[in-house]
């Protein structure tokens, strides 16, 4: 939890409400139908208490035992009716909730995937991951179990109060004596719980991130014997989450204690009212009994409804994190989407800083004519990967512009073919079948096209040897690919995406020299017919390029052909080349 971490935005309460309203508006008829059916079900169910009261009255007035049969049959009919109506109403409400939920999660992911990478990384990977996981789940569980319960409980409460009023308005007045305590309790709780839940969600996210870091780095921790340190970190984060949860529990239990008080006040008041009204002969004992049973039956729905406030608070803390991302304003659409005239690449006076006042690129200008290949070399930390990311549109430059075929990359038609693609040494295999992974690059590709792409990068051999060929499940939980295979898969995706410009950042570095040679052949095949910008420390790649650009401390210091630069006395490239080839030349000569 460093100070520099800058979490992704969360929505304000108002924004969240607006988002909910937008989700519900197209479903309002479903909502109305669901509420109507549930209201009917609850209303029918409310006849139970007076019928029981009627039984009591029959008994007190000394009616024959057979007279009881009629109200009992009515009770049975009501049971079946209210059961069926409840089931149907709940189905409708579930369709409402699930539909809205699906739309919400789709909107969230759609927006999340288009967030600027810099923003996601500044927030830490755990932030977005825990929103996509924990937070969506928290909202879903409230929608799934909470929403129907809430609807039923609120209806039960409203209609029970109405039922009390029908018996005698004074019963309802007595019952309402509980309301001030309940309302105060809700107000008291809401103010305290919301901030607590927000903190707890962050703590759980931090715990998750620490676990992933420690477990993912377990071999490193073992090798360096830093077990105690990491155990301490995990323990600390876990204990923080536990402590915050316990503070929430303390709050919740105090919340329920206050609700118990309200129950007692209301029940005593209803009983006392019944006592007085029966004594003055205004209602029967049966009516007083019905009133008391009504109120007793209110305990459960009231507790459920108010208890759901707790779940709703937790879900709200999650919802604002989802809506915060889902409703981020879209970047301004290009005024007139244009298609590039050719496959040339231009970077004009590009500057960039990750953190304010620490620029890492200064006024970098590069032109790559269509179809040519430029190698970007320079010391480690010079800014090569930064430039590669900017060119590929993964980051936005602080200033300057990048154009493909004369069109600024912000003005490219976003739905058209990808103009620039970037492959780095970071490999990732998506969970799913090999074919699904490849089709991320071109969704409408046929199996033959997939195979052709694999073949082109030299991956066909191992791919067809997989247990189920293209249908083999790879990625998390599936068949494990080696680093070199995963990199070839990335190159096959590049072939399928078929961009005019390909940017490769150390795409062969991970494989070591021997593996690099195989990958270099794959790279050459994948790049065929494209404009290429290659970042490489292996200068064999630079030697093959049409031009070499040398970056140093964020500035271009040299540019020219490999042969020219190699001959420049005291040149940066000449120095790099000497260092790189010195051994090799000496060795070859040997």
């Amino acid at each position, binding site marked *: 939890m460093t100070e520099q971490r800058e979490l992704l935005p969360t929505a304000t309460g108002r924004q969240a409400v607006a988002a909910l309203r937008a989700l519900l508006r197209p479903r309002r008829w479903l909502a109305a139908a669901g509420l109507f059916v549930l209201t009917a079900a609850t209303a029918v169910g409310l006849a139970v208490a007076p019928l029981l009261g009627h039984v009591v009255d029959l008994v*007190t007035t000394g*009616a024959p035992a057979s007279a*009881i049969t009629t109200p009992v*049959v009515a*009770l*049975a009919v009501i*049971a*079946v009716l209210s*059961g069926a109506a409840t089931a*149907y109403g*709940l189905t409708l409400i*579930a369709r409402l909730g699930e539909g809205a939920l699906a739309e919400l999660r789709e909107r969230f992911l759609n927006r999340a*995937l288009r967030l600027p990478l810099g923003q996601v990384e500044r927030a830490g*990977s755990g932030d977005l991951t825990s929103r*996509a*996981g924990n937070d969506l*789940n928290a909202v879903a569980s409230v929608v799934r179990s909470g929403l129907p319960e809430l609807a039923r409980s609120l209806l039960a409460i409203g209609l029970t109060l109405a039922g009390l009023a029908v018996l005698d308005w004074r019963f309802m007045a007595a019952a309402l004596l509980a309301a001030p305590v309940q309302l105060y309790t809700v107000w008291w709780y809401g103010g305290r719980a919301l901030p607590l839940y927000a903190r707890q969600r962050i703590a759980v996210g931090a715990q998750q991130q620490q*676990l992933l870091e420690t*477990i*993912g*780095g*377990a*071999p*490193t921790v*073992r090798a360096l*014997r830093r077990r*105690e*340190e*990491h*155990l301490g970190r995990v323990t600390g984060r*876990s204990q923080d989450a*536990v402590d915050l949860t*316990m503070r929430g*529990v303390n709050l919740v239990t105090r919340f*329920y204690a206050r609700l*118990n008080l309200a129950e007692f006040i209301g029940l005593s008041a209803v009983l006392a009212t*019944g*006592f007085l009204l029966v004594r003055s002969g205004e209602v029967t004992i049966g009516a007083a009994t019905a009133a*008391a*049973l009504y109120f*007793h039956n209110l305990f459960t729905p009231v507790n459920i409804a108010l208890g759901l406030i707790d779940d709703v608070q937790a879900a709200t803390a999650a919802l604002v994190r989802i809506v915060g991302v889902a409703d981020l304003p879209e970047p301004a659409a290009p005024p007139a989407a244009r298609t590039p005239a050719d496959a040339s690449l231009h970077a004009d006076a590009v500057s960039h800083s990750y953190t304010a006042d*620490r620029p890492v690129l200064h006024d970098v200008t590069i032109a790559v004519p269509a179809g040519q290949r430029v190698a970007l070399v320079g*010391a*480690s930390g010079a800014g*090569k990967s930064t430039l590669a990311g900017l060119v590929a549109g*993964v980051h936005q430059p602080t200033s300057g512009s990048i154009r493909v075929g004369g069109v600024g990359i912000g003005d490219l038609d976003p739905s058209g073919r*990808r103009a620039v693609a970037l492959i780095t*040494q970071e*490999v*990732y295999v*998506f*969970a799913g079948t090999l074919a699904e992974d490849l089709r*991320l690059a071109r969704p409408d590709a046929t199996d033959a096209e997939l195979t052709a792409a694999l073949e082109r990068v030299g991956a066909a051999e191992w791919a067809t040897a997989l247990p189920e060929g293209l249908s083999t499940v790879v990625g998390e939980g599936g068949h494990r690919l080696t680093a070199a295979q995963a990199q070839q898969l990335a190159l096959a995706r*590049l072939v399928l995406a078929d*961009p005019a410009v390909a940017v490769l950042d150390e795409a062969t570095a991970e494989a*070591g*020299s021997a593996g690099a040679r195989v990958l270099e052949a794959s790279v050459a095949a994948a790049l065929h017919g494209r404009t290429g910008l290659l970042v490489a420390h292996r*200068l064999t790649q630079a030697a093959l390029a049409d031009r070499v650009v040398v970056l140093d401390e964020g500035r271009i210091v040299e540019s020219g052909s490999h042969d020219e630069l190699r001959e420049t006395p005291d040149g940066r490239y000449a120095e790099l080349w000497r260092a790189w080839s010195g051994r090799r030349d000496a*060795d*070859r000569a040997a």
Partner: protein
Amino acid sequence: MPQLTGGRVLREALRGQAGRITGSALLSTGHQAGEAMVPVVIGVVVDRAVGTGSSSQLLLWLGVLGAVFLTLSFSFRFGARLGERAAEQAGHVLRVRLTDRVLDACGGADTGRLPGALASVATSDAGRVGMVALVLPLGVAGILGLAVGAVALLRVSLPLGLLVLLGTPLMMGLAHLLGRPLQRRSEVEQDRIAHTAGLAADMVGGLRVLKGIGAERAAAERYRLSSRAALTATVHAARAKSWHDGTLLAVNGLFLAVVALVGGRLAADGAISIGALIAAVGMAQYLIGPLSMLVWVNGELAQGRGSAVRIAEVLASPAAVGGDAPLTGPITGRLAVRGLTHGGLRDLDLDVTAGQLVGVVTADPAHAEALVDLLGREREPDSGTITLDGHDLSTLDPEAVRAALLVAAHDAELFEGTLRDNVLAPAADGSTVPRQRTAPATLTGQADTAADGPLTAAPAASGTDSLLGAALAASGADEVAATLAGGVDGALAERGRSLSGGQRQRVALARALAADAPVLVLHEPTTAVDAVTELRIVNGVRRLREGRTTVVITTSPALLAAADTVHFVADGALTASGTHEQLVREHTGYRATVLA
């Protein structure tokens, strides 16, 4: 640890919270009993006060009602707190225990398991086992609550009491039977929902790669399809559940009608009082509560058992490596590999002379990985031995081996924190493993003689600072410190993401050097840096490690040229040895491998 079963994990977790669980069970029972008493007291109030018009009776029984509420409220409050604390703490203890097992020097827990899956065992499964500590008292309370209700009811009327007591579970069983086929179907559909959730996490994880090829839209579309399929599934599942709930409601209502019928007739015949009738009806409603709670408790117990099994599997994973012999005395750093067969290595023999810088080149990168795993004691060899100063590594305590022989893997991770904390383990770890002297002046000398016993004292601050400085300079990571806002105290993002590739690699190398181990094994330490920086690193490492054994597993000519001896491994066996120059001159296979 023989026979660590899920049952044992569960029992141990509960035993650790025995006090809280007992307290919670007692208090929750008080709460349930109170809830059961409420309808009974309502009946009494109607009987003795409303029916008779006696104010004193009204006040008396309302007082009793107040006492009942006070009891149930307080017992709930403190019972729930104890239960939740037990659950959270039990989950926490398991989480820490799992982490401890994963980090165990003998390894094995993370073999064949993905970090995401392990993290989920440490969070979800640990939490579910913890939940058992919460639900167990509730289960006890539910049963006792039933008993209290039963006694109260049987005292009121034997036949009516029996009807309610036997009828309620029967009714619940019936509803359960009716709902079963529906629920079974819904379980299948749960999978589809889980898949969608997993897909979202996976895509966010691969965000960088998605963006690189502009596949954001395709990915969003794939997710949308999966989400739609999940929607169909959840609506199906919800419909099944709704009809199950509706059935339960109907059955419950029918049962109530039966109770009213029987109770009403008994009351009409004068066999029981009105109050008894009301209590019976109220109780028929109340009993649903504890009974459905028992059903829920049962479900949680089943889930908890399932989770405990998964936890036990991780905790009981066979150790990847063994050995417990201590490594005492000075370490000269002589390594000998004999007949080593593992992951492509076949009968490999190799000698590393103490104090030398030795290069190892493998024609196949996978063989290098295998060797790194074996030297780092991540795996036991299929056959053959590696000895350090004549001690077979397999017999030694892995922790002691790593203190003497540090393997810096190529894919080592950086951690969130400052540069300094990454390079030097934060102090005060109380480590008793043999440590080298730390002053840089002695770093270059014959350091072996100093490491003749466990040193417990933490190195002096100035010592660690110069150690840090020396390691940073030798690895070229001093340049990294210079670019950070806080210098060596500048913060790195998680996994060092805020650094360039080559900067990350240099920091990892600095960390390996700063550990100051008698034997250091470096695996491809310079793949991400430029050639000039590489030369600087070669010289730095050579100078800093002077006189101590250093093995570099690499194909980089710059590193190999600096080595005293180079071993070339082709087809998994030692093929040639000599200096880099000799091998380049005399061995075509070697030339092809390193001069690519």
